[in-house]
């Protein structure tokens, strides 16, 4: 059973990342839960969700001791660093989160997702790049599954957008696999 937190600002597509990942994992035949955080915090604040993927029944969908965190903003790092499971892995969008982790028992993987997205010609795919990297790193699902998940969720999606998303996923995965890590 693996717990992942996706966290950032509203508008960064954070919830979408988690949702697509959860659908992908479900179609892979796993047990999954997806829990968005909701609060009286007004919009424009933080957004985050927790996805649990498991081969067995999932008891608690909440973000206690997550194994992974995909962090898109500084406040999110602040919020989640403290509750990570020992040895957990934090994937950071390093263009938004420059500071290093304070906990030494965690691994961090820094992905300059905004830069990479710009290279691809659209800042819109920042989340796909992070998701691609996440999938490649954790091997919890495949990029194909994610693409299937995407088309299941977003009906009538523009083929060119789909293509761009795929590019984003690929670029993120590549970044991990090619060992571009700083």
């Amino acid at each position, binding site marked *: 059973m693996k717990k992942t937190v996706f966290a950032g*600002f509203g508008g960064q597509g954070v919830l979408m990342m988690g949702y697509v990942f959860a659908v992908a994992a479900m179609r892979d035949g796993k047990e999954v839960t997806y829990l968005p955080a909701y609060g009286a915090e007004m919009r424009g*604040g933080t957004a985050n969700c927790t996805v649990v993927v498991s081969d067995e029944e999932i008891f608690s969908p909440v973000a206690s001791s997550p194994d992974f965190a995909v962090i898109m*903003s500084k406040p999110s790092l602040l919020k989640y660093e403290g509750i990570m499971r020992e040895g957990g892995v934090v994937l950071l969008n390093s263009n938004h989160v420059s500071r290093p982790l304070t906990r030494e028992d965690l691994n961090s993987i820094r992905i300059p997702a905004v830069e990479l997205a710009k290279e691809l010609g659209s800042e819109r795919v920042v989340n796909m790049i992070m998701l691609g990297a996440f999938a490649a790193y954790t091997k919890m699902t495949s990029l194909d599954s994610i693409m299937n998940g995407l088309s299941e969720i977003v009906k009538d999606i523009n083929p060119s957008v789909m293509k761009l998303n795929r590019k984003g996923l690929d670029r993120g995965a590549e970044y991990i696999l090619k060992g571009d890590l700083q």
Partner: protein
Amino acid sequence: MTVKPKKGRIVIDSRLCKGCYLCISVCPNKCIVISEESNEKGYHPAEFTETKDGKDRACTGCALCACICPDIAIEVYRE
């Protein structure tokens, strides 16, 4: 008879600013811009373009920016 325009100055608390840019939209003298830096909350705060001792200060201290600022992020000083 020319009235000597008052000189003004504002201080924007970048921690409070949420980047709504209403101040920019109302400043008659275009003294406010969007900062390149983002703050703790992820907003790019508004930034005052003039300094206290700068030349050609345009800000009159009219306080329109502060008046519309939803986050009370602006203090206004006037000579």
